């Protein structure tokens, strides 16, 4: 999936990726896609939950070996 911006969360663990995502999403324009790259397996559950509560759109997960890539579309400011 093509993303407008990428957030590197390799080697950091729950709940820091969520917090970093919250800060990072502010840099995007509404409609843009953020890619979060993580090696923390918990992110598979945390990110859809985070999207549900914050109202941003969860687009999906792609996994390549250790890397888990999560895609989020910013839905509002």
């Amino acid at each position, binding site marked *: 999936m093509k993303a407008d911006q990428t957030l590197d969360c390799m*080697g*950091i*663990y729950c*709940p820091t990726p969520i917090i970093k995502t*919250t800060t990072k999403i502010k840099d995007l324009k509404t409609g843009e896609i953020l890619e979060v790259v993580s090696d923390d397996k918990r992110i598979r559950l945390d990110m859809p939950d985070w999207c549900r509560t914050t109202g941003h759109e969860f687009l999906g997960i792609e996994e390549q070996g250790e890397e888990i890539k999560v895609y989020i579309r910013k839905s509002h400011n």
Partner: protein
Amino acid sequence: MAKKEKLTIAVLSGDLERALAAFMLAVTGASMDMEVSMFFTFWGLNIVKKNEGTMKSKGLMKKMLNMMNRGGSKRLKLSRFNMLGLGTWMMKDLMKQANMPSIDEYIAMAKDMGVELIACTTTCGVMGISPEKDSFRSEVGSLAGAAYFLSEARKSGVTLFI
């Protein structure tokens, strides 16, 4: 957007691991769009006491209490396996290895994300602290009492006592 959900945390303990847990939840709550208040009381006041300088207090008993219980985020200990500081030092090192933020970083993050930090006025007296903002680190926004905590708590979807 819908009205924000509220999370209120009462922090009674000044143990390092409990302080960390409290801040992790506060910061995560804030990133999940919740309005978060943390209310520090009894030993929990140690977490938000100023790290530098001597604590100002009036009266012999309060002065003694402050000497024995100086507090400040840098002086927090584990509740178990402190082993004269060795255990705490080891845990802090393991946290660093796992790229986990320190308690000071968590406090700064909490402030940045709009978490409200409140020190309990009443227990300041019991713990030998003069109940003014000057006794606490700058991140502490206000001092308040039990009624304020309860009025926040009754509006909250989640209330925790740590």
